[in-house]
């Protein structure tokens, strides 16, 4: 018995040494929303570059920011850009900046369950803000009805459903409402979790969808990907150009392209309510958070290699997984920014 145990132990030790020697292990943590495509990317990249293995934990954007700031992971990922205080905290701790790299785009869509209404509804920004502030409380309110002529909206009370947990989808949704409504901005604000004026919380996209399906006269928001993959009907939203746009990948990419002209150097940009035709207004980038300075040169080169690959080959995986690709303008700017990783 002892002999077998000994042999086993030695084998395990050897395997450990071999494994550790063979692949450079890079650890990342953060946003849950892009997790499906990130895990696809890291697997594909490992196939193409056997020497590099990237390990990603989808612990949430907040935890991703915290862990990369604490230095417990090599890179982070977030659905909402870090704010100035967080950037300062990172710089104070590490003596170098943290860099944002947009990877793909996502969107949030309004979904609802009104008995007797089967057509796709149109929502104006005022209507959405009013509903989620609790000011518009009936479905036949003129603010909704005027944008939906010919639809027989009932005089029932609206039941608002939001996410119960902190989430990137909530960030996009509240970021949009903050832009189109000063009342929302002053009273509620934007974030992964907010103090909702009205409504019930459901856990995850599936929790929100479940509550909406079960509750007559409910309205809520879910990720575009989730709505597409689960064939959940959703409404159109009026963009800044005055068109009612039903979200699709083209509309989301258009929002990114429209915003890329005014995009700041550090890529921390909100593209909700972006100007231009064909734009779906409740869209957002999701970002990788990469330290500006690495002490380990092999790790730095590996991460630079991955970002370069992600901006070229990696983008081709986006649409099959229902994420919107980065527009060319943004890819070009990011390729230039890679040299900032030192």
């Amino acid at each position: 018995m002892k002999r077998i145990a000994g042999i086993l132990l030695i084998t395990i030790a050897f395997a450990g040494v071999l494994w550790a020697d063979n692949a450079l292990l890079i650890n990342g943590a953060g946003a849950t929303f892009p997790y499906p495509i990130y895990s696809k990317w890291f697997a594909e990249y490992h196939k193409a570059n056997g020497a590099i293995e990237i390990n990603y934990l989808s612990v949430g954007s907040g935890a991703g920011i915290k862990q990369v700031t604490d230095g417990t992971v090599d890179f982070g990922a977030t659905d909402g850009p870090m704010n100035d205080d967080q950037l300062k905290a990172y710089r104070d701790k590490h003596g170098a900046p943290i860099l944002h790299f947009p990877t793909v785009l996502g969107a949030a869509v309004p979904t609802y369950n009104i008995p007797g209404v089967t057509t796709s509804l149109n929502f104006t920004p005022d209507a959405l803000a009013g509903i989620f502030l609790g000011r518009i409380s009936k479905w036949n309110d003129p603010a909704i009805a005027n944008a939906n002529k010919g639809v027989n909206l009932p005089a029932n009370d609206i039941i608002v459903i939001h996410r119960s947990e902190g989430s990137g989808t909530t960030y996009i949704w509240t970021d949009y409402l903050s832009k189109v409504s000063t009342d929302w901005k002053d009273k509620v604000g934007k974030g992964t979790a907010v103090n909702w004026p009205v409504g019930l919380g459901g856990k995850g996209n599936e929790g929100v969808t479940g509550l909406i399906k079960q509750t007559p006269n409910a309205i809520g928001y879910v990720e575009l990907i989730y709505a597409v993959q689960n064939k959940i009907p959703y409404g159109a939203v009026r963009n800044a150009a005055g068109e009612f746009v039903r979200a699709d990948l083209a509309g989301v990419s258009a929002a990114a392209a429209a915003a890329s002209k005014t995009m700041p150097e550090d890529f921390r940009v909100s593209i909700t309510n972006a100007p231009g035709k064909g734009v779906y207004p409740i869209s957002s980038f999701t970002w990788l958070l990469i330290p500006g300075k690495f002490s380990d040169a092999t790790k730095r080169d590996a991460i630079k290699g991955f970002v370069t690959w992600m901006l070229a080959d990696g983008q081709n995986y986006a649409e099959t997984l229902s994420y919107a690709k980065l527009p060319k303008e943004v890819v070009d700017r990011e390729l230039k920014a890679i040299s900032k990783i030192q």
Partner: protein
Amino acid sequence: MREGDEIARLITFLFAASVVLVTLLLVFELWQGSILPRHKFGFNFFRTSVWDPIFDQFGALPFIYGTLVTAGVALVIAVPLGIGAAIFLAELAPARVSDTLEFFIDLLAAVPSVIYGLLGVFIVVPLMREYIQPALKNTLGFLPLFQGPVYGVGLLTAGIVLAIMVIPYIISVSREVLLSVPRDQREAALSLGSTRWESTWQVVVPFARGGIMGSIFLALARALGETMAVTMVIGNAPVISASLFSPGDSIASVIANQFTEATGDLYLQSLIELGLVLFLITFILNGLARLLIVATSQKGSAMGNA
């Protein structure tokens, strides 16, 4: 052999001491981890009801309220049902029926809470919205408890799901306690001319009081700390309303919901302070439970039978 005894004593002592150590470490960590909100809000943390991560205002009151109300509703339903079932199984049912049912009860106690959550979402919530809540509103609607809009989810629904979850604990422990009441007690009562029910209700149950109380507090502890199943049916809105139909939120549920995405130290530490509050509530209620058991068991019944 003496050394052997010494070593065994030392090792088992260390194991026992580790329980105390873990508890102290837990309190210490929670206390250390919540410095910012304790200094900023002080006692107001317990008194205010705004939970706003954007404007950095954190008050625990709605979560404390939701936790206590849901656990309270659960006990109001589960205690009579559970004890009734335990009396039947221990005193009245044939041994074979009792053992078979006990098997199912143990099975129920082992079901993961997310399964109860799903049961809640797909069965209890629609039932509540379509039948139970409208019925309550029509009959008992004059009470503030049963007023307001009907959502299906809410405090009452969470309490009912919790009740379903804790009933197996009460039945299982109470049954064991009742079975362990000495035969002579029953025989003495019967020989004095009491009926089967009189002997059960007036002799056996009081004798087992301490253990039954223990089962209730075990159930209470589970109800207070339950996270997943509550989150799925409580509505997750930090409001305080007299109506049981209203959505609410509990401490365990809000921590689970918001911890991963919490950005900013004050926000994160406020969630940790909520953990401390839950610990405190459990501690106080457990203390009260002990007092209650001591107080009620002085009237000549056996305590510590559990």
